[in-house]
């Protein structure tokens, strides 16, 4: 796989940015969406940014679960022109609310809906429901894709520790609700009771003894209530799985050179391969780049600093440390490239200052979307 980001994303309708937490996934997603919009596409970025600074930067902090248009004027003076039919939309995911909405959509009637939403187990424990954050992210993806309102949807995946949580979400949720047998023995009555037979009632009795009767009754109510939406969940999960595997979808694995993130990225790449999901390449953030030439002498630095030798010494020491990091990052990149089969990852260098405003987005965007020689020159300019 070779090529610049724009080439890698050509013809894609869904771009999933995946990777472990804290590697700049949200910023990358927003910068990718902004770049595609600036190139004439109607783009919606679905993000989960708990810090909300990105939302503030884009002027969408007041957002609920519906896409909101990002004002093109936000980018005025930053060298980004969104025009020529391009539109940038954004929405911030609210997992609990999305999950409730999903229940409302799928429930056969209002009574069934209320029964679930008001179930004590659901209310107290719904945040723990089988990775609801991951599932709601893809539920939203499904809904947006089906709406046909956008040319491209960029999905920033939830900040799970494990990138796989996202990939497994449809299976886990249906697995969680694969309750036919379970429901039958939780409330063995009528036909169900005849089907499950005696063995099960022994288990049921033992279970009540271990867990307590009240808990069993509440759980039974919980599963029974959910059973009404089970088919809807299952259909949706299957549709999302098909969507993720589609030719129009691509997974960008976002990472940093740090060990944990790097190994997670490699692991996730393997999982994509196993699942037959499309891999669009790596985005490696916060890379310290090693200059090919030797570090400058103390005198040279002092000359650049009006002869301040003490300050020059500190600067040289800092440069030495950066070069240690750069050497580490260089071998991290080599390992990433070899292990993921992306020989030419998109590299975003360690940028000075925080990247949480429009200006920061634009800087990240410049590195992501630079092409050919310009990309190489940008990286060379960032070297230490």
């Amino acid at each position, binding site marked *: 796989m070779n090529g610049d980001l724009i080439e890698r994303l050509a013809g894609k309708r869904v771009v999933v940015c995946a990777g472990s*937490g*804290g590697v700049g996934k949200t910023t990358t997603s927003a910068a990718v969406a902004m770049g595609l919009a600036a190139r004439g596409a109607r783009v919606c970025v679905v993000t989960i940014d*708990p*810090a909300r600074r990105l939302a503030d930067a884009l002027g969408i902090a007041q957002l609920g679960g519906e896409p909101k248009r990002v004002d093109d004027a936000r980018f005025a003076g930053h060298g980004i022109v969104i025009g020529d039919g391009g539109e940038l939309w954004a929405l911030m995911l609210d997992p609990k609310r999305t999950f409730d909405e999903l229940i409302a959509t799928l429930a056969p009637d209002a009574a069934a809906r209320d029964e679930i939403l008001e179930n*004590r*187990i659901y209310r107290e*424990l*719904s945040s*723990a*429901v089988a990775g609801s954050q991951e599932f709601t992210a893809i539920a939203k993806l499904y809904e947006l894709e089906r709406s046909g309102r956008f040319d491209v949807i960029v999905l920033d995946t939830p*900040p799970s*520790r494990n990138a796989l949580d996202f990939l497994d979400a449809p299976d886990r949720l249906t*697995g*969680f*609700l*694969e*309750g036919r*047998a*379970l429901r039958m023995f939780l409330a063995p009555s009528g036909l169900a009771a005849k089907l499950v037979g005696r063995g*099960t009632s022994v*288990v049921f009795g*033992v*279970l009540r003894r*271990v*867990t*307590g009767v*009240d*808990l069993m009754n*509440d*759980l039974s109510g919980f599963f029974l209530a959910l059973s009404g939406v089970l088919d809807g969940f299952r259909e949706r999960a299957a549709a999302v799985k098909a969507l993720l595997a589609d030719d129009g979808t691509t997974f960008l694995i976002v990472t940093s050179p*740090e*060990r*944990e*993130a790097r190994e997670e990225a490699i692991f996730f790449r393997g999982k994509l391969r196993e699942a037959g999901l499309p891999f669009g390449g790596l985005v490696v953030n916060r890379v310290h780049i090693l*200059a090919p*030439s*030797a*570090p*400058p002498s103390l005198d*040279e*630095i002092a*000359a*650049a*600093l*009006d002869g*301040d030798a003490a*300050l020059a010494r*500190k*600067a*040289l020491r*800092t*440069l030495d*440390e*950066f070069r240690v*990091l750069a050497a580490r990052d260089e071998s991290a990149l080599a390992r990433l490239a070899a292990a993921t089969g992306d020989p030419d990852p998109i590299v975003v260098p*360690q940028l*000075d*200052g925080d990247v949480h405003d429009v200006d920061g987005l634009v800087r990240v965007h410049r590195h992501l979307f630079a092409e050919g020689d310009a990309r190489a020159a940008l990286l060379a*300019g960032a*070297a230490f």
Partner: protein
Amino acid sequence: MLVVTGKGGVGKSTVSAALGTAAAARGLRVIVAEVAARDDVSRAFGEAGDARTFVERDLGDGLHHISIDPESALEEYVKDQLPRGLADVLASSRLFSYLVAATPGLRELLTVGKVWELAQPDRRTPGAHPYDLVILDAPATGHGVAVLTAPGTFAGAARVGPVARQGGKIHDMLVDPARTAILAVATAEEMPVNETLSLRDALRTELGGQDLAAVVVNGVLPGRFRSAEARALAAAGEAAGAGAGAPAARAVRAARVEEARARAHRAQVSRLRRGLGAGVPVRTLPYLFEHEGLSGDQLARLGEELLR
């Protein structure tokens, strides 16, 4: 019992391992517990590759390690609650494993339940010895607080019966500052600081009686440039302009980046201190420029530094 919590990737497992090492060096019988499927602590102890779970491994000199998986915890719990024959009925039941997989929060309860068992003066595990200190490298479940509140939530949801009793007992230990200390690990960045502050709030509301015992901020940059120097660096950076790729300019740029990052770190650490108030000690650990895991000696030194 010491619960070490915090966002993923902030060095929680290193801090857990370091504290375990240091406490053992002071003569305590210590076990560091982590949740299976992650082997960060074993990696910190240089034990990668040992896939066994639920085994209390003696690492020597009073230090022990266990990796807890909810399935084994469940099996142990059921054996403990039921006579042999009935336990076997359950263990072989597919329906039962469905129930465990499907019940929200049950896995968290089982995991923390095993940690609780380790911390008992009278261990129910046959032949097991008590520990002086149990350190839990808590799973990074978003807010870190989920695993701490699971027992109480479960006790509330179950109301009566064995699960409610068990959940209640564990909850009582978790909310008691005399028996359980909660330590948060963070880095000097926006999100980890936010999470630490909201963890503290969540503890107050959901785990009444508990406050953070301490916060460790990992990887703080030294901040070696004074403000006059920062200005000189900025001026030199501007002057370099187009020649920014020249060797001397690279050093100036490195210094400027470092200065900006260190300043941002300081700002985050003060924001954390302000947010937590005087009652919660905040310790900082310096950024290490070689970061591919620490040796046993380094771990021990880090732990000593923290206990100082």
